[in-house]
């Protein structure tokens, strides 16, 4: 019993971070209808920036979010302008757009690998190696901070979408792009903004990934497959779905990892993905998507 609860605690504590990692992905899909296969590559890029700040300026990875998020926002806006602004409006080009994000992921991975070599890296702030004990249970301090921070950012995102005019316009665009355009929403600008926000969210999660996991450039494939599986489970384009999917699958993966060994924990996500595709392709909370 104690062990079961412990596994659930560890699973949930990673689930929050996975939810943050997936939030940008699902937001971008919701507004633009494209799956950004480079999302995890951008997360790794943000981890490397955090790592650089930590190594050369001794900046705490959590504090560095203040720098990494705006930087990644600008990167996102630039990437959107260069690659997606023209092809986004045309649904026939969406298959090609996904391939484009795939190619961007290859470029990021290759460039990072070339510049910094494909070795394991992680930042090591003091809290990365200590744990909080309460009763018979423990929680690594790093995961505790990461979970809280993810929750704060996700609540902030939710409030932004719910209570601001821009957030209202974003939700309208997610709901029906054409109708939003008809009533005067500048969908192009909204798309650009959302891509920037998505990348900023990737930046924040990348900063946390830098002390939660050891990262190397080619790790992003594993991450992106995990993110996509929980986004598909929750329903593409649904933020709440991404959160639920992240929590459910992280706990499941924690159990698999504990009983069968950590090698098999990613398999949880892939098998979940195929199971969902087989029985409920639209996910738990997604509407039936027409591609």
């Amino acid at each position, binding site marked *: 019993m104690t062990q079961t609860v412990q596994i659930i605690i560890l699973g949930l504590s990673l689930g929050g971070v996975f939810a943050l990692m997936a939030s940008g992905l699902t937001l971008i899909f919701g507004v633009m209808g494209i*799956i950004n296969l480079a999302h995890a590559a951008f997360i790794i890029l943000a981890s490397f920036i955090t790592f650089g700040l930590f190594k050369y300026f001794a900046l705490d990875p959590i504090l560095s979010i203040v720098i990494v998020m705006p930087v990644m926002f600008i990167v996102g806006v630039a990437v959107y302008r260069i690659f997606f602004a023209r092809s986004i409006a045309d649904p026939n080009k969406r298959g090609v757009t996904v391939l484009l994000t795939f190619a961007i992921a290859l470029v990021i991975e*290759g460039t990072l*690998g070339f510049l910094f070599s494909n070795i394991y890296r992680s930042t090591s702030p003091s809290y990365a190696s200590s744990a909080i004990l309460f009763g018979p249970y423990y929680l690594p301090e790093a995961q505790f901070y990461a979970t809280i921070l993810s929750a704060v950012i996700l609540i902030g995102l939710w409030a932004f979408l719910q209570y601001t005019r821009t957030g209202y316009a974003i939700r309208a665009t997610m709901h029906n792009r054409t109708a939003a355009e008809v009533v005067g929403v500048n969908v192009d600008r909204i798309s650009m903004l959302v891509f920037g926000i998505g990348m900023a969210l990737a930046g924040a999660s990348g900063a946390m990934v830098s002390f939660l996991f050891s990262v190397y450039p080619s790790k992003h*494939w594993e991450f992106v497959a995990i993110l996509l599986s929980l986004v598909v489970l929750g329903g593409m384009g649904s933020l709440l779905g991404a959160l639920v999917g992240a929590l459910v699958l992280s706990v499941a993966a924690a159990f698999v990892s504990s009983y069968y060994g950590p*090698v098999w924990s990613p398999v949880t*996500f892939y098998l979940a993905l195929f199971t969902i595709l087989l029985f409920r392709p639209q996910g738990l909370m997604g509407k039936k998507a027409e591609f």
Partner: protein
Amino acid sequence: MSSAESALSQKSALGDSVASRRFFIAFLLAATAAFPLLQVAFGGLNYWLHMLLFIYMNVAIASSWNIIGGYAGYISLGHNVFFAIGGYAAAILFAYHGISPFISAPLCGLIAMSSGLLIGMVTLRTRGPTFIISTIALVLLTKILLDNWRYVGGANGMSLPLLDMPVEFVKLPFYYGMLIIAVASVYLSFRIRRSKFGLGLRAISQDETKAEVAGIPTRFYKILAFGLSGFFIGTAGALWGYYLTYLSPAIFLSILVGAKFVLMTILGGRGTVAGPVLGAVLFISANEFFVSQFGATELNLAATGLLLILVLMFFPEGILGTLKQKGRLPKILDWD
């Protein structure tokens, strides 16, 4: 009268183009089949044999990928799974039962094809981006399974004995094997393109809902196309593992391998018969040049990605597709 005359002249022009195309293809076949004679006569051409057989293999792979990715429009980033299945099936049969991959290759193709039919039943329930995701997950899942399967050496891979032949001839069986696979797969692609099945696949790529309404058994067609596209990739994998004498999940199942399948086909022009052939020849040659100049580093990965970006942004129809749109396609390359 004039219309009849122009129709007649058009017909004879068509006859000319068919004849020139036939001549071109016959010439290609004769030249590729006769090339090893130079090696027998003079020797020292092992590097060229290697490059050519590598190109043939990729011609086969690109033409096969084109069946599902080009004709049906379902972009799969996970076709290297079939490559791995073929390679490992042949290696197991060879290492544990002593059956040479040259004999088992068609069987390995069938194994890859049956896996494709089964996998297709699951992944082809989705369209568009979700399908692409499922193919990536497939690669990662297969890699983890092979990494942990001790019978085939896990992540360390398995070694196979060398083909016992003098060094100047050892590449020839592989050369002809890959040549046969390449020709057969291009022929299959051609026959599919001309068939009712191929027409159905192209209707699916245009508008799947309408295709279904028009009475095309879309689900059956898609699964069949997915399976068929696995056959020659599996066969090529069987020979390639033996040729390398070493198999590991990292060789067959990196994302980059699957990405190159896609890039070659798109570069040449997906949905055409000659496109994948041209794409494979150009891409492998360019890649070889790049690797020999700059080394097979991470830079190669970045360059592959960059090339893919450029092609997608400026020539999404590929070389042949773009030429065709402009009406400048050389007749000898119009194999549809």
